[in-house]
């Protein structure tokens, strides 16, 4: 689905993060973990649209409102942050597979590193809706990298979140995966089969989650990132390696992913 949207609101929720609300011509059921490609500039530099997780997409006050949360990291996101109410943007999506919870999983640990919370929160809200039990771990370098859950419309989750920062400025001092490891260990080995982990964050984090999941015998699903040109499967630019008979095969993060079972993903070092 390729269409235009109009900015309703585009406000900072932290030093580096913005929450953008866009009015869209329709809404469409989406699976948390799916994303949209967004372009919001004239001219050809930057050229390509940018991928962002769908944070929410609902009817609000009679309008179809798509939300994304983004961090300013480069030219495209700088342009996004300068947009005003009424400005038009181009949107392609929902795209990707999203996170479909395994039928036999009853309890979840959701782990988000850095901007990863923008996929974790929609997954969490969805699971909460289904009445599932869950723990959320959010981590970053420093407190400034994590906007308060309330500022991004996730107040209802605040009680479930454990924060961790590398510099200790918020919550625990340490890595998301350190907290994750403890949380997993707290679960009796016998009951781990009821659990599933969903993780979204930098590659180093996800590759540690893969190792943990194998060691601790707990299912894990990883939401990957990669450079994307098209976002809908036609350029073959975004592939990662997944295990396949006879070694590996290249699959597209934008189509077969972004969410993969941790078993299948092969991280090159």
């Amino acid at each position: 689905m390729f269409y235009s949207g109009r900015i309703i609101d585009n406000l900072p929720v932290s030093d580096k993060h913005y929450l953008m609300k866009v009015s869209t011509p329709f809404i469409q059921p989406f699976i948390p973990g799916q994303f949209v490609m967004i372009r919001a500039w004239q001219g050809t530099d930057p050229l390509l649209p940018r991928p962002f997780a769908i944070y929410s997409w609902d009817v609000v006050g009679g309008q179809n409102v798509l939300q994304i949360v983004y961090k300013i990291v480069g030219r495209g996101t700088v342009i996004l942050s300068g947009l005003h109410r009424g400005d038009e943007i181009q949107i392609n999506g929902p795209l990707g597979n999203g996170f479909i919870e395994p039928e036999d999983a009853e309890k979840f640990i959701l782990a988000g590193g850095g901007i990863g919370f923008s996929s974790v929160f929609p997954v969490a809200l969805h699971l909460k809706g289904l009445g599932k039990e869950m723990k959320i771990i959010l981590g970053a370098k420093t407190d400034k990298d994590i906007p308060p859950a309330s500022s991004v419309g996730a107040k209802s989750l605040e009680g479930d979140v454990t924060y961790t920062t590398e510099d200790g400025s918020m919550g625990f001092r340490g890595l998301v995966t350190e907290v994750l490891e403890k949380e997993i260990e707290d679960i009796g080995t016998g009951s781990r089969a009821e659990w599933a982990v969903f993780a979204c964050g930098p590659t180093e984090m996800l590759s540690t989650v893969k190792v943990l999941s194998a060691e601790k015998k707990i299912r894990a699903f990883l939401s990957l990132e990669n450079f994307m040109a098209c976002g809908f499967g036609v350029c073959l630019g975004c592939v990662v390696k997944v295990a396949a008979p006879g070694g590996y095969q290249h699959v597209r993060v934008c189509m077969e992913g972004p969410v993969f079972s941790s078993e299948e993903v092969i991280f090159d070092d």
Partner: protein
Amino acid sequence: MIDLSVCIGKSTFKNPVFSASGTFGYGVEYSDFFDISRLGAVIVKGLSIEPVKGNPGPRIFETASGMLNAIGLQNIGVKNFVSEILPHLRRLDATVIANVYGKMEEEYAAVAAILDDAEGVEGLELNISCPNVKKGGIVFGQDPLAASKVVQAVKKETDKTIIVKLSPNVSDITEIAAAVEDAGADGISLINTLLGMVIDLDKKKSILGNVMGGLSGPAIKPVALRMVYQVSQRVSVPVIGIGGIMNERDALEFMLAGATAIQVGTANFINPRISEEILDGIQSYFDREEIERVADFTGTLKT
């Protein structure tokens, strides 16, 4: 009545707007966005005799008004294409051109032989921007003789329309164009990507898994226009213009320069409906300017 149809070899295409190989998947992906049977032709991702895994990542990177890609010609192989994708494309009523490549001329011929039997393939586009393993990796498209041989070998296997797609990484594009025309090409498409490279200063590392990649997008349009102009002055077979076409005005410029048809590449990533919009734009331009046939417009550039 305006007639947008164009002839290349024995084939007649309903209009001059084609999709560029590698930017349009196997075509079917775009049927979510518009009716792909409207296009003059859908040119699918490059096919080889066996499936190919392609290059390790990163495979793409954005540059100023362009992008580099080093996909490594990943594809499902011609046989899977014929059995799994082609029926789908036929149901969608798409006019299909198969883009073909190989590591030696025999591989091109083998793919052509399989496609010769395939119903629903209107023509073949030979991508000669690939290293010739028999000649120490020199790209076919940089060697007039090797390029001619590929064309001849393919022609032996099929009577379908053969378009040869030229590499721009050459000193004299007209020399290679003339060579493939002499070897029997029914049409010539150009340009493929310019060879480039990107570097990550922070990591002190080249970004692409393959180190070098192909530059496409608006950045290369002036080079593409120049080569289309030069080649269409030199050969008499139809020329298909490619390179940085983002809208109908770009497309019409290529036609003025001598292109009978055009291909839309990188622009598809930005707007998946762009090729249909370009087609509509050309149609309205012809209406407005009262141009009755493509041939009345192609190559009418004043210099």
